[in-house]
């Protein structure tokens, strides 16, 4: 059990370490930031001075070692563009992306969970078919186009909602539907199959035999247990939503982390790009770890069995 935990944590750390290397190499590939920072009149001496200020004149492995050492301490360097700490810049934008991601996730749950439950209870009826159609549409809609179509309908034609930018709750409606729509299919399928499993369990049969109302059996007894598998994946789905927000943020000019990505790449702002890459990497790896731990907590047998069982 403890060995399993330790090996999981170690694996997560190795993954993150590989990620820092990729982040480092990838951002160094985008070209010489000096070209962006200095104008054409800069002399060779100016370039050298600037390179030594930024540490860009050292060999790459040394740069990486310094970078890693600082990163472990939470220091990711200053943005080349604004000269402010890169981490601060990302953290300033993060709340907006979190706001969008959370609302989108709620929208997704509100649509997906009831449909998932009902299509499990009324399996193979027209409701179930409707659920499948919704799941299929969820999978098939290109997010960026759905966003534009919602703008066309609700902002341009009906003039009910603003088309872009961040502001009051009205600004959140279209972006969160656009972003949330994307995960409806996945959540619905998870809920439906978990519900189907649960409804066949003996305690559900018992609850029915006791004469409980069908709605009580479904929404209390069965759903509570059926939600465990989808909930364990909720974190991962949420991270996926935040990463996917780049597209939605672009369509709606939402000034979150996604927009910062695009601004930073255009400016070759390495430190900021690295922080964002690592931020999402940490969230992803962290969520995977949490899922593993949750599974041990729910089903202690997993901790005892071989690692390959679940990963396989």
């Amino acid at each position, binding site marked *: 059990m403890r060995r399993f935990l330790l090996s999981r944590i170690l694996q997560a750390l190795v993954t993150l370490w590989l990620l820092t290397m990729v982040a480092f190499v990838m951002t160094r590939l*985008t070209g010489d930031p000096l070209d962006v920072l200095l104008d054409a009149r800069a002399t060779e001496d100016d370039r050298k001075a600037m390179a030594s200020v930024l540490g860009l004149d050292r060999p790459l492995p040394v740069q990486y070692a310094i970078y890693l050492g600082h990163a472990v301490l939470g220091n990711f360097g200053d943005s080349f563009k604004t000269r402010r700490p890169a981490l601060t810049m990302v953290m300033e934008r993060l709340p907006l992306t979190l706001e969008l991601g959370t609302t989108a996730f709620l929208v997704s749950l509100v649509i997906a969970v009831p449909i998932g439950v009902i299509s499990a209870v009324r399996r193979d009826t027209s409701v179930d078919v409707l659920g499948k159609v919704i799941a299929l549409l969820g999978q098939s809609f290109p997010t960026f186009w759905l966003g534009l179509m919602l703008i066309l309908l609700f902002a341009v034609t009906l003039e009910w909602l603003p088309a872009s930018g961040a502001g009051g709750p009205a600004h959140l409606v279209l972006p969160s539907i656009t972003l949330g729509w994307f995960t409806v299919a996945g959540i619905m399928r998870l809920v439906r199959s978990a519900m189907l499993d649960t409804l066949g369990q003996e305690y559900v049969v018992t609850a029915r035999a006791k004469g409980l109302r069908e709605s009580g059996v479904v929404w209390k007894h069965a759903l509570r247990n059926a939600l465990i598998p989808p909930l364990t994946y909720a974190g991962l789905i949420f991270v996926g939503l935040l990463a996917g927000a780049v597209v939605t943020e672009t369509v709606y000019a939402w000034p979150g982390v996604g927009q910062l990505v695009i601004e930073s790449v255009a400016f070759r702002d390495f430190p900021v790009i690295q922080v964002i890459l690592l931020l999402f990497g940490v969230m992803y790896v962290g969520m995977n770890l949490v899922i593993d731990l949750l599974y041990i907590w729910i089903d202690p047998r997993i901790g005892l069995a071989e690692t390959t069982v679940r990963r396989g």
Partner: protein
Amino acid sequence: MTPVGSRDTSTVIAVDAMSRSAEASSVASGDIDALRFLRRRKVLVLPLAILAAFVGVGVLAPYLAPQSPTATDLGLKLTPPAWLADGVAERPLGSDQLGRDILSRIIHGTRISLITSLLGIVLAGALGTALGVIAGYCRGWVDSLIMRVADMTLAIHIYILAIVLAVVWGPGLRNVLVVIVFLLWSRYARQARAEVLVLRERDFVTAARALGCPGLWIMARHLLPNIVPSLIVLSTLQVGFVIVLEATLSFLGAGIPPPAPSWGVMVADGRALIASAWWVSTLPGLAILIVVLSVNLVGDAIRDLLDPRSRKL
């Protein structure tokens, strides 16, 4: 690669036959069912027809398109589709801000979608399957290394990778393929590995190993054929995803660069015009939606056909 000489040929054939029958049993039942399955699911006729059209239009694009996809005509700019008041017959689905024919661009865009999705899936499938089979067969540190790298690639923010690559190499097909492979190879690797872990304990593999077959021969000749059916199912389920991914990257400016008529580029072209000329963005997006819907419907059906367990879910 040829088997080592000192072996009795008949035994080799027997072992081969064993592995082939394992393969056959998983496919043959599907073959018999296929026609009946299609007859029961008449809903599938339309998406299959759309898919056939998608491939046909993609292959024949230059012969089908009435105009060149990049020919501009400022006199005809932002013409609405022919069925609307100001529409003209030379621009059946209207034109964009440079007067290019949207119908011809959609037709040529089909080819981009088709090429990217086929190439991307073949490349990702080949790489992922090879690494997955190796991981599952060799186990130990090789397995751990491959799987950790798989975890790491999934932890990378895919749009950042795409945008950075677009800055480094300039946007183009190469970036899109790299991003697709980067994102998809691990799905193939996981599936191939999981199946090989089970298969490698089967008698025909033990027999092959007892005969002294080299590992590479066992992987290529005995293990690979047995996992192909499920990898095909996996692939059909990725096609729609890949088409949308290409369009999304092109929309963001990190995929196929303008003026090439990628559907994503076309939607991006019309973004600023959404209030005045809705057709520029709407129609190419509709093309994506229709094709991806059909692909997903057919993909789900193929999965149900080849993997009856999933039918219950």
